Structures are given as structure tokens and as C-alpha cells.
């Protein structure tokens, strides 16, 4: 005998991080009820203290999110890391919490690298002296190894990444995420509440099929009180290298990110056109910004990175003022 209760609870779920989690009427019979009511949503105080200590020396944290897969989160995270690390005085960390599909090692030219342990914890893998990376990819011995884990195990590894990695003093911690609004996203927001998150950069492509997932992601951010730094519209048009005509391969049938940002009152950080060199650079593990400095996509990315830097600086300034 089936039941409609699950269908109802989709609409009436109070939210896993709400005070009513596990206690509302709609929670009766929900498979997550025990988890929510038992305060799994609330961090363990000892754990929170441990994480706070470990992350004390992180000045700015930026999450890179999207409801939609394949829009360029990892590509953007990698380029943001390279862009910020261009200032040798800044220390940058790139944390890849996509446990099933870790793209960052390849994109940063670090495939095959392994994680080393020291007395102070796991060492990140360094691309440059001031740019360190961590990913489950470094823990796998073969490119065919699949991480077939349910939620709780993924959460455990994410916690380890934050607690056991010896990041040192960091100016920017960039967290690359998998698509969706599930365990990884809830966990990272929960664990990072021990420190603070400057905000989320949300990646989309122009077409409605992406935007509909991205609106959900923006609502997720609002639900968990995560500030949205802004939206990046990736794959925004393609200019034929031969005839220079533009094609909208992923057409903005409902006004693209621009309209969505207006409607939801979030910033549009910029639009980045398609460029075949981007994929090539990612596959080679090189920074597209260095490989194709003249590309219009490079200027777009650089402008966006600058706006994010400015946002973080203002945020820092604001914090200082409060202190």
C-alpha cells in the first residue's frame, strides 16, 4: 500500500536546519525524522570548537555552487583560485567536496598526486607555493576507482577535509561543490558555521533548464542564510572563429541569468562566452587565464574575479568596523 504522506511532506517539510526540524506535524513518518529531531542539523559543540580552531586563520571563504550539473563550477573554482593566487602575497586554498566526481585534481594539473600526512595533519597538494588543493581525487589510487558512498560517509570525509587538513594561514578558501542541494551542501554550510562564509558564487548557463535548478539553489542559500555574492552566466554565446557570427547554443529563452537575477534581487557578476580553449586548458591542467590571455572569456573571468575580491574586501572591512 502506497502512501501520499511523502508527497505531502515535500511541500510541508519545515527544512532540515529549521528549529522545527523533526518536530513539525509533517515530520511524522518521514525517514529523516530521527536525524532531524535528534539535532543532527545542529553541530556537536566539541566538533564545532575543533573546526573553529582549525579554520581560525582563514580570512575569506567562498562557496561555488549551482543547482545544475555541468555549468562550469569546477572550471570557475579553478580559475578563481589561479586568479586570486596571482598575487603572490595571498595564500589561497581550493577544497573540492565533490566526492563522486572530483574534477579539481585534473583541472589543476595534479592528477596522480597523493596526500601526505604530517604531525599537523594532512598536507594539501600545492600547485604554487601560495595555492594548495585538497580533493578526494588524491585519495584514489586509480582513475577508475568509483566512490560509491551514501550521504553519511560523504559527510564524514567533508568533515575530515576541514578538520584534518593543515591549511595554515589562508587569505581565501574556495570550496567547489557537486551539483544539487543535498548532503554535501548541508554539511559544508553546517561545518563552516564554525567559521564564517563570505558568500556563495552561483554558476549557471543561460537556458531555462539550468535556471530552474539555479533558482532552487538560490532559495537553498536563503534557507540556510548563506549570502549570495552573485551569479555567473557561463557558456553565454559562441562566436564562430571563422565567420565571427554569434550562436546561442544554450539559448536564454526566459531572459537568461540577467532576468533571473533581476527577479531574485541578486547580482549578476558577469557573462562568460564559450571558448574551445577553456575545455582544452582544463583537460591539460593549465590555467586558461594564462593560456589564452587575449580571449574575451578571459576578460570576463578576470572582471568577475575582481568583483568577488572587492566583495570580500568590503565584507572584511565591515567585520573590522563591527569589531
Amino acid at each position: 500500500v502506497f502512501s501520499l504522506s511523502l508527497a505531502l511532506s515535500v511541500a510541508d517539510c519545515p527544512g532540515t536546519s529549521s528549529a522545527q526540524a523533526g518536530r513539525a506535524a509533517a515530520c511524522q513518518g518521514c525517514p529523516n525524522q530521527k536525524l532531524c529531531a535528534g539535532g543532527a542539523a545542529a553541530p556537536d559543540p566539541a566538533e564545532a570548537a575543533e573546526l573553529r580552531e582549525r579554520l581560525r586563520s582563514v580570512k575569506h571563504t567562498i562557496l561555488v555552487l549551482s543547482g545544475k550539473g555541468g555549468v562550469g563550477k569546477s572550471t570557475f573554482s579553478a580559475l578563481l583560485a589561479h586568479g586570486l593566487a596571482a598575487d603572490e602575497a595571498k595564500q589561497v586554498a581550493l577544497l573540492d567536496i565533490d566526492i563522486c566526481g572530483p574534477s579539481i585534481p585534473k583541472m589543476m594539473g595534479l592528477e596522480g598526486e597523493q596526500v601526505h600526512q604530517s604531525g599537523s595533519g594532512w598536507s594539501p597538494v600545492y600547485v604554487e607555493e601560495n595555492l594548495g588543493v585538497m580533493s578526494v581525487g588524491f585519495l584514489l589510487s586509480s582513475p577508475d576507482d568509483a566512490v560509491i558512498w551514501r550521504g553519511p560517509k560523504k559527510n564524514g570525509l567533508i568533515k575530515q577535509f576541514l578538520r584534518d587538513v593543515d591549511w595554515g594561514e589562508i587569505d581565501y578558501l574556495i570550496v567547489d561543490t557537486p551539483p544539487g542541494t543535498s548532503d554535501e551542501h548541508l554539511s559544508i554550510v553546517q561545518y563552516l558555521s564554525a567559521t564564517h562564509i563570505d558568500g556563495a558564487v552561483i554558476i549557471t548557463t543561460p537556458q531555462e533548464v539550468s535556471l530552474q535548478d539555479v533558482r532552487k539553489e538560490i532559495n537553498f542559500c536563503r534557507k540556510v542564510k548563506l549570502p549570495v555574492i552573485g551569479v555567473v552566466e557561463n557558456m553565454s554565446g559562441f562566436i564562430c572563429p571563422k565567420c565571427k557570427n554569434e550562436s546561442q547554443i544554450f539559448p536564454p529563452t526566459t531572459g537568461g541569468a540577467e532576468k533571473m537575477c533581476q527577479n531574485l534581487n541578486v547580482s549578476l557578476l558577469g557573462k562568460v562566452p564559450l571558448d574551445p580553449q577553456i575545455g582544452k586548458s582544463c583537460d591539460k591542467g593549465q590555467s586558461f587565464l594564462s593560456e589564452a590571455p587575449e580571449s574575451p572569456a578571459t576578460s570576463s573571468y578576470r572582471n568577475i574575479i575582481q568583483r568577488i575580491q572587492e566583495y570580500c574586501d568590503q565584507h572584511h572591512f565591515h567585520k573590522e568596523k563591527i569589531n
Partner: protein
Amino acid sequence: LLSFLPERSNLAGVRHILLVLSGKGGVGKSTISTELALSLRHSGKKVGILDVDLCGPSIPCMFRVQDNDVHQCDSGWVPVFVDQDKSISLMSIGFLLEKPDDAVVWRGPKKNALIKQFVADVAWGDLDFLIVDTPPGTSDEHISTVEALRPYKPLGAILVTTPQAVSVGDVRRELTFCKKTGLRVLGIVENMSGFVCPHCSECTNIFSKGGGEELAKHAGVPFLGCVPLDPQLSQSLEEGRDFIQEFPKSSAFPALAHIAQQILDGTSQQSS
């Protein structure tokens, strides 16, 4: 006395179940699921699509039925028919959301419970094919779906990739997932494989070329073909139109039709 009678399973009338998988997001799983269903329909088949992407359900919009509701009958949930023909039916969490922008922020156990219901409680009736569209990855949704479908002996899985190494890298892991869970790989599709400029016909490999075909060779699985980037296909999906019916001259059509034909050939071989 009635409780001792075996219930007729809701999947008893489904002849072939196939999954559309990828380790990678945004490669075109929902697109391929949709176009495969439309192609199979044009060959006279009755098709269902079960969308188990709970965070990003794309299927309802691709058929322009996102505002439809799910009703119940004696045997369970009635799938949503895309038109009066009733030749394509759908089930997705998209139909159960009050507001389409509501995020489904669930941890694993709740996702698993809904997937079990989706597999057992949808009254599909008689179908030639049930296509199961999945989210990217190898996690709760995939483990639960394969476990729930196991008694019904799925035909196998189609794996979708884009040509570049970063995608192929994730799809290799998905192949391992199939091996470990005993799911037969029907073949690999290389999607977004090249773009032919509609103005000058110059072909640009925006996302590189050949990675999917190489992977199929390396893994010893069938290669189902390359599907090019086609703005008419993207537009068609945005508008919930029948691309197979309306755009037979478009660049992606031959490849999509060929994929469906190979699936049909595979199943007719099976029965002979």
C-alpha cells in the same frame, strides 16, 4: 484472505527497463532520456520515463507538463501523460512540488525512501520501455535505484559523456559503478560532440572530440554514437517540443535516431 494474494507489481507490465547514467553533470542525460523516449514513440512504442533526480528534476519541463499534478488510483500513483495519445508517461518529483523554485534539501535517507516509492508505487501499466533518468554521481539515488530495480532485471544502462577528458574521467567511475552493481552497459553516447556553425558550416570542437568513443573502446563497451551540439535541440527542449517529429533535418537528429535504433535492435535480438 485478500492480504495473502500476491500483489501484481506495478512493473509487471514493463517489458524493458533501461537507466541513463553519467558520473558527470550537465552532459545531457535528461536530454538523451527525452529524445530516446520520443524516438521510441515514433517507432510505435509505449514509453515511460522515471526521473529520479530529486534535486534537479528536468524531465517535466522537457515535455512542457511541469504544471501537471499526480493523481492516485487503486494501485498507486498515476504517471503524467504528455498528451492524449498516452504513449509517453512520466514520473518526477517535479510534479510533487508546490512551487517549482522550492529547493528539495534532503539528506540521503529521505531521498532513498522516495526513490523506493517511485520504483514500486507508480502504476505504469503496460510499457515497452521504462527509461530511468538519474542525477550525476554514484551515491544515494544510484545505489537505491539499482537496488530497487534489481528484482525486475533491467536491460542495462546507457552512459552519457561529453568528449573532454574532465567528463570522461567521471564516466570511467560510473563504468566501475555498473560493474560493481552488476548493471550491463548498453553503450556510451558522446554528446555535445562538435558544433557546426549555422552561418558558415565551420565545425568547432567546443568541448573537444573523441573522448567518449575512446572510452568505449578502452572499456570494451558498445559506442552508440556522437551527438553534435545543436541549438535547435536546446531550443526544442526549452519549449517542451517533440524534436524528433519537428526537426528531422536538424544536425542532432541522425545521431539521436541511430541511438534509438540500436536500442530497438538490441531488444529484438534479445527476444529472437
